[in-house]
């Protein structure tokens, strides 16, 4: 993990320095607190250990955050991903639970295709609201965020659908080539998105739409189509994350599945250095941001602090990272250092200001 972030630093320059540092510090603190933190062992052909767990548990967040990165790069935001997770998971589980043979691969594939299709339709709905009708993204996706939870509960009829299907369970807990399948799926999605955006002009086009939709339209880019597309991609990512979340527990809960994942995903994107104003994005930063959030959560669990209280730490980390990245804050900090040389006192003080 250390080597990974070290290798990233020269590649991406100063932009990823702070998030990477936060992750490294957190891992170091964990290793000091619990020496066995970084130990990875091989049991019956599979890798086990805390780092692997963090990677596996962060897989849904990475997926959702990838889609969110693209949406935010166009200057939008997608609040509905959590509800989409719940809906896709609920539909897949419902189909499997009603099938004659829940273990047959064809049943699972049909369920996945069905749920994925519905998610794409809902993503298209978001896309139409934003790109065609021209509603503000935050409010357009708020509609599906509120109504989506209701739809998910409608699908499950307010119950928790429990399923007993090995192939479906594998999406969350299975292994492939010694690594958990979830990590590989998230990795594949990250590479796919990276290839499409950074190896073709698509990424540049997305950024130009986020920078100025009207100007890029005049430059010959079909900006509406791009905006529509990113919401569909975001919904697709959310659907796969929904499969993982429900496969992890082999059950679909319309209320709890993917709850607050949209907020975590937005945080991951922002921590990764993508501006909420749009116009530029960093996929590696997003992955790093998702890993930071999951490492923080795991750290807090390991220290026997209640999961809800971990929100306190999340709040501090979020504000600290955002402040460090805020241009206004940096400008102030730089001005002061040039003037009086008070050293790193300024960020310290701001960090303390939050929990006051």
């Amino acid at each position: 993990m250390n080597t990974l972030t070290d290798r990233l630093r020269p590649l991406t320059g100063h932009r990823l320095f702070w998030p990477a540092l936060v992750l490294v510090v957190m891992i170091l603190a964990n290793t000091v607190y619990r020496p066995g933190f970084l130990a990875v062992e091989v049991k019956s052909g599979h890798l086990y250990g805390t780092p692997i767990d963090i990677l596996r548990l962060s897989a849904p967040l990475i997926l959702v955050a990838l889609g969110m990165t693209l949406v935010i790069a166009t200057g939008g935001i997608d609040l509905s991903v959590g509800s989409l997770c719940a809906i896709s998971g609920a539909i897949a589980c419902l189909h499997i639970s009603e099938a004659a043979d829940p273990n047959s691969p064809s049943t699972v594939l049909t369920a996945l295709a069905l749920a994925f299709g519905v998610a794409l339709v809902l993503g298209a709905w978001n896309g139409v609201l934003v790109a065609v009708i021209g509603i503000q993204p935050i409010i357009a996706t708020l509609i599906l965020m509120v109504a989506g939870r209701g739809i998910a509960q409608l699908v499950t009829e307010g119950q928790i659908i429990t399923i007993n299907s090995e192939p479906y369970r594998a999406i969350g807990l299975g292994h492939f080539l010694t690594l958990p399948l979830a990590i590989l799926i998230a990795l594949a999605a990250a590479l796919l998105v990276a290839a499409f955006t950074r190896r073709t002009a698509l990424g540049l086009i997305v950024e130009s739409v986020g920078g100025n939709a009207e100007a890029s339209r005049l430059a010959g880019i079909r900006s509406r189509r791009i905006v529509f597309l990113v919401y569909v991609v975001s919904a697709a990512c959310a659907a796969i994350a929904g499969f993982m979340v429900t496969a992890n527990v082999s059950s679909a809960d319309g209320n709890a599945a993917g709850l607050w994942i949209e907020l975590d995903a937005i945080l991951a994107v922002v921590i990764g250095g993508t501006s909420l104003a749009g116009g530029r994005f960093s996929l590696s930063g997003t992955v790093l941001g998702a890993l930071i959030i999951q490492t923080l959560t795991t750290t807090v669990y390991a220290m026997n602090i209640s999961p809800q209280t971990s929100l306190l730490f999340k709040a501090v980390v979020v504000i600290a990272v955002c402040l460090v990245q805020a241009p206004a804050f940096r400008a102030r900090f730089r001005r002061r250092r040039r003037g009086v040389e008070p050293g790193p006192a300024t960020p310290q003080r701001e960090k303390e200001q939050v929990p006051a």
Partner: protein
Amino acid sequence: MTSTSLTTGRSWRPSLSRRHVPVLATLTLLLVMYGIGVSQYRAFSNVQVIFNVFIDNGFVLVVAVGMTFVILTGGIDLSVGAVVAMTAMVSAALLRDGMPAALVLVIALLIGPILGFLMGCAIHFFDIQPFIVTLAGMFFARGMCTFISGASISITDGFWTGMSQERIGNPAGNFVSISVLIAFAVVLVAAYVLAYTRFGRNVYAVGGNAQSALLMGLPVGRTRIAVYTISGLCSAIGGILLSFYTLSGAPLIAVGMELDVIAAVVIGGTVLTGGSGYVFGTVLGVLVLGVIQTLITFDGSLNSWWTKIVIGGLLFAFILLQRLIGIRFK
């Protein structure tokens, strides 16, 4: 409401009635829904049904008024639900430790505004998006709740139980709780501030166009910080009202309330980009949500999740309406 005095803020649009269309649409919707209720269920015409909507939603109303200020400046405050829970939690914990009720009230009413003030400062001075800052505020407040106690704390204090059980009503047996009166007071004060004070005009001006407001010499920064402080204060009052209502503080109470509140404000005709909207509309928005819940309760066969789907549908309808009548057409 007092619309004529507000037109100066946005005088470039001459048609006055257009600004009122969303509020009138909400009013019509409310009346239609009430009419449906009365025609379907005999007990619905009882005045107490309306009073109960107010009793059950008094705290939502107060929080929504605070949110109206924030949204009018073009911002958003995601922390309200968590601050409501934190205020209720803090009061319950302090009362359990035997602190006098008056002191508890003061402390509880201070926490929300202080958090709001800090968030406003972070938003204004460091130029971080309100969405992210208030999200962090939400995490912080929600975390504090569980930090105080993982389980719910019941309130047995005499003042609190008194406020909770006091019924103000007529001989016919219809009554409201004190919370409703407090909520009404907050609504009236907020409506007055927005319509008749310099600060109120600044709020509309900042929401209409922050750059222009700055060039006009209006105190944009002070206004922006003030609205988040006001939202924090309203959330704190809402938290107190909620603790009157439930007589307890629970760490997971009011989860997702911010969504309901934002929905109520939008349904009430306030435009999310800021600069246009009324407190009166927000009151109607909260009532619409309350009547939906009452209708679904009266029906009995519909499940609670239909509430969410209906709210989502209404949000869509109202945003589309705002779009069609061309408010803030970019």
